[in-house]
């Protein structure tokens, strides 16, 4: 099976928002809508403060709460793990938007929208025999744009993939794992012990 996922190396991310901008441009999202964005988080108190930059967006969860709540079945999960929205089915009730633990969705012009992992690029790329995550033409725009090489895209189910390698070599976590949504953005924070 294929399970597309993003690995975000928090050690490398500098919060430049290049991915945010690249996504906005590639997907033509309107002002105020960011399918990919990078948070600027502080932890601790002066002078013992840490500041980190955290790329977030739709996590394409294994158990997407947005999909389960969707009354119209507009939100679905593909066999390769990508959570999609059928704009022709969506009624714009906004239930998915409030059900998502990752603030990943916004209702735009009456329908729910969110990161698609640039699914069109992946599909078109695969059709051409390209490898998503390796060939830029088949890779999400945010990953292509990253100037710190912090964002990686690949198949988490393929033990030989680029991201499986990164996950094996490093320690990682996922956002709010306790919610058991099975998010598919993995955050690297240190080398494997």
């Amino acid at each position, binding site marked *: 099976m294929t399970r597309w996922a993003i690995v975000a190396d928090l*050690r490398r991310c500098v919060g430049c928002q290049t991915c945010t901008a690249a996504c906005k*441009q590639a997907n033509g999202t309107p002002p105020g809508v960011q399918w990919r964005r990078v948070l600027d988080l502080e932890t601790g108190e*002066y002078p013992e403060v840490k500041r*980190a930059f955290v790329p977030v967006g739709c996590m394409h969860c294994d158990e997407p709460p947005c999909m389960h709540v969707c009354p119209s079945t507009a939100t679905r999960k593909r066999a390769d793990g990508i959570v999609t929205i059928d704009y022709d089915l969506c009624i714009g009730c906004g239930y998915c938007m409030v059900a998502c633990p990752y603030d990943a969705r916004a209702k735009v012009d009456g329908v729910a929208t969110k990161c698609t992992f640039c699914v069109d690029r992946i599909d078109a790329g695969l059709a051409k025999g390209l490898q998503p995550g390796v060939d830029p033409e088949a890779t999400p725009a945010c990953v292509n744009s990253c100037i710190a090489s912090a964002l990686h895209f690949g198949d988490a189910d393929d033990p030989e993939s680029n991201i499986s390698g990164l996950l094996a070599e490093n320690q990682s976590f996922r956002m709010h794992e306790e919610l058991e949504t099975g998010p598919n953005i993995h955050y690297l924070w240190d080398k494997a012990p």
Partner: protein
Amino acid sequence: MNRVATYCYQCVAGPDLLTVKVCDGVAAEVEPNFAAAAVHPGGGKICVKAYGLVQKMAHPDRVLHPMKRTNPKKGRHEDPAFVPISWDEALELIADKLNAIRKTGLIDDSGYPRVAASFGGGGTPQSYMGSLPAFLAAWGPIDMGFGSGQGVKCYHSEHLYGEFWHRGFTVSPDTPLTKYLISCGANVEASGGVAGVWRHAEARSRGMKRVQVEPHLSVTGACSAEWLPIKPKTDAAFLYALIHVMLHENARERLDVEFLTRHTSSPYLVGPHGFYLRDPSTKEPLLAPSLEGTYRKAAVETGADGEVLAEGELEGETAFSKLVVHMKAYSPEWAQQICDVNAATIRRVATEYLDAACVGQTIEIEGMSLPYRPVAVSLGKTVTNGWGGYECCWARTLLATLVGALEVPGGILGTTVRLNRPMSERHMSVKPGPDGFMHYPFNPTGRETWSARPNIRNAYRSMVPLAADTAWSQALGPTHFSWMFLDGTPEGLPKVTLPEVWFIYRTNPAISFWDTEKLGERMARFPFMVAFAFTRDETNHFADVLLPDALDLESLQLIRIGGTKFIEQFWDHEGFALRQPAGTPRGEARDMTDVATALAERTGLLGPYNAAINKGALGVPLKDFSLETSRVYKCEEIWDAACKAASAELSEGADAHGLEWWKERGFATRPFPRTSWYLFPTLAAQGLRFEMPYQERLARVGAELEKRLHDKGMRWWDKQLAEYQALPVWKDFPGEWESALVAMGGKSEDFPFWLLTSRSMQYAWGANVGMQMIKEVADNIAGHRGVIINASRAQELGVKEGDWVDIATPKASVRARAVLRQGIRPDTLLLLGQFGHWATPVAKDFGMPSMNKLAQMSVALTDATGSGADIVRVSVRKAA
């Protein structure tokens, strides 16, 4: 759909290479140029700013036609009442003014050029202005010293002293190899561009430790292993204490004694008056046989203007011994009191630096064995300019010198020259100078040679010997003087006059310089101002003519890439890249090259203009592809010739690819030897020494300048003259700004905050403040919506997140929303970027002020290099 290759040079940390997806003739999407991944030091990527370029073209408030001011009254609150005119009328208007000047004389009665021009920071506009430099060269004298932030917003002391000591206009760690980096306020993650971000991410990944020393936790601090929240403007004390620990608390063998002895001025004998002891006959400096000690020798000691100060059997102490004594008082305990960094931490950092220095080790680079010293110190803005800049730059260079980490693998590197010639190759600028050191093109200070009559209004040639006299020097003098002296020229200088014609391109001094309100009032007095304009802004609000230039993705230009350029742009390749239209220019926007040609034609300068192009004004001498000097060429023809010349240069004459070939490829390179990153071998090969640690030459230059100025009755520069010290002492640098506060009528306790600024990755240098998308994404980073204040301190003041606060000096105030953060000292405030717009579309609605309105231009806050620092003492109160 097709892809067009081009470059982005919106910030000094460029250029980066990109492609633009063009659908049905319309630029749709910017992407990295993946074909450049193998040669570009940032993986062929482009930063967030480049993603604004498509929106820039489509900006709804673009100036699309030449415009003429119809309201003769100028002022912030006057509507310029611009009306559209034809290009012909616009060019005629300008040519009439210029031709009148050519008739009366290019220089006015004060000796200043009647034409002035100002361009944006870091030389970035040159990558967009096509052949305009050829027109400027053809014209003759032009005053380019009306600054728009140069000198106060740059790494000014680093530029001047860096070039002097190691040809480092900008100084960078050898990031691909450095293991330990002390970064005093250097905000590389925000200002180092793609190459900087990419390389530092790689460096972190291989375990480089970076200690970030700065009053607020910047994005760079965030990405560092450790943050030391230092009191503003006390970095020199911190650095001095590091040196103290290395000299006084560690065995001498831990330093690179061999490097110090053979490659620096350390063994030079210093006489009783502080000048080198010299051989009585050859006048060459006398060297001690060891690093330290006192020796008696038959010698002569010569001071300023060749004056013999002592002669005969003289006692001299080595420069290194002088240094050891000089640094004795600067212990970590001493520094702790000043800079608020714990003495134990200072000791630990010094020791870690020494431990990481690998003294004695070598590394092989391209078959050449070189010292391997993977330690570096980098300095940021406000550390490297204004009072204390000299001391910090000296201490940083000394820290490298002590362990032999200067211009060697892993150490600190000067990456480019702008004051030494040739600018294209810093190694070629290494020539023997006096006393076994490199030549440096000081502005002369001799009795006969000193320039008593400045060539431009900021008087850099007269006042700042280190500024040298190249094309860049005008902008590296005290550029605020041009503005200040309009309201009163100090004694000894010819009365500063208004330029009769002022050209403005890609710069907005009414926002980006200091004391912006007063600056605007002065600008309003300029009789004729021509502004190339993308949108209306705070500077072109005062213009007489607006010219819409074809933008980044609409016009044509070829530039040099690779080799070693600013900041982290040192490549393993060198070559050229083309900027080409990815769509038709909107409205009547016209390529800068065509505008320059039209101006040359209408002012009768076509011959010298084409000759300047042939000579290399486009960045490459045309040689075999030279233009006929009498012909009017179209933009494409001009750049076709440049492309051919570039091809020929790259292939050593084998190829002559024209514009079409370059349009297909976008760029072409050849390998650039990595050994050329390092200056040390070049000096060693010529038997030259680094002029460290002792600054005899600077002391002499200062003493001579003092005599020249005093001879003319000029006493207003005396404080600056005191900076010329052979071994700089710590002075109360923060106290300079406290004194300035008192001079404004304030008391320190009433204005207890240090207001600082910091670059924004999304905006720095980009001239992109009018782009909605950039604002939207920048807002994800703290500080883009208001003033950053320590959360606990804010609580004490009763200020909550989002509250409006007034930030004030005794003379001016600005209002901002409070952004409460933990990562800032309780005595410090931070206003990111340079906002405070009132005319630029989009930006004028940010509600985000700038420190530039609060910072005063003053001689007292100007250091000897002519620079000031971005720091103001202020109060904060919840707005009523």
